[in-house]
């Protein structure tokens, strides 16, 4: 589990990109996203609901993703998120920026 404040902040700064990556492989609802982030990080990182939703709402405003209500009959209805073309571009841009920053940091640290 990431308990260190600095690394947690560093990771949180990339919430948008993490979510976009997951949406690249298909539409997902909120809890599905947070579960996948948890398991894909080998249970080391947990995205708080508030962080995830504020990231989703922001990306929806910026038209990186769109949302729609599912048609579940059992339990409550779920809201699904789909990545837009703009979102895909944002993902690749962010990923490229990160690779660049990582290369520099690896040289400097």
């Amino acid at each position, binding site marked *: 589990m990431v308990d260190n404040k600095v690394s947690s902040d560093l990771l949180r700064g990339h919430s948008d990109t993490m979510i976009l990556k997951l949406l690249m492989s298909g539409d997902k609802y909120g809890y599905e996203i947070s579960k996948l982030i948890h398991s894909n990080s080998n249970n080391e990182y947990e995205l708080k609901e508030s962080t995830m939703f504020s990231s989703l709402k922001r990306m929806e*405003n910026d038209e990186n993703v769109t949302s729609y209500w599912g048609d579940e009959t059992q*339990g409550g209805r779920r809201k699904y998120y789909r990545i837009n073309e703009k979102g895909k571009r944002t993902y690749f841009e962010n990923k490229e920026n990160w690779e660049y920053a990582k290369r520099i940091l690896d040289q400097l640290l």
Partner: protein
Amino acid sequence: MNEKLLKYLDGIFSPYEDLHTVKELKEELNVDLQEKLSDFKIQGYDDETAYRMTIDSIGDISEIIESISVKTRELHQMVSQDFSNINLQNSDFKGVKVHDGKFNGSALKESDFSNSDLSNSSFKGTDLQNSDFKKVTLHDGFFNGRALKGSDFSGSDLTNTSFKGCDLTNVRFEGANLTRTKLTSVGLKNISFKNCVLDYTDFTYSDLSGVCFDNRTLIGTIFKGTGLSGTSFKNVVFRNVYFKSANVKKAIFDGATMDKLTYAVLKGGKANLTNVTVI
């Protein structure tokens, strides 16, 4: 459906309920968290622990509210809206119309309300430090007990608005219409009321030391129990002005004109009334 979890969400979202987007968000969050809760139980956690873990995973709710928080354009023409308990620091409300708005308990520090119409709005418990209320219409507004330090109300219409017990340090009221405005129990030391309409303005128990009212006509203004040390009323015309229990000894009335009743009360308070004309 775990009712306890739903109640918890009701609680944390209750200040924001009136916003449609927030209602939807709550529904979304509820479905997600209910599923998370039952997953924790499947993993073998007892009810109480599973509930605790679910609640702890929410994080800071204001983070989401901020990301969806009312955008200025949505605020235009809103009537009877409730903006209570929202963090709206540095917001731009220029020229908006919000009748009967409720801004109770919101943080509005350094917001710009210039030229807006906020008739009948209520700002109880709101943090409005350094806000700009220039030329605002605020009929019947309420600012009770608020920090308004450094706010600018110049040219605004504050008829019937109440500022009871507010911190008004360095506030600007120049050119404002203060008819029947209640500026009661507030510190107004050295504040300028230049070009203000002060008819029936209620200054009960406020400190008006050093304020200059020279050359004005004051009708029905209430100075009950006010501190008037060095306050200047030179050449003022007083009609039915009420000075009961005011500390008038150190006020300056040179060249003032007043009705008999006002004169009698001032005389009773041992004011210096040489050079005063009684009408």
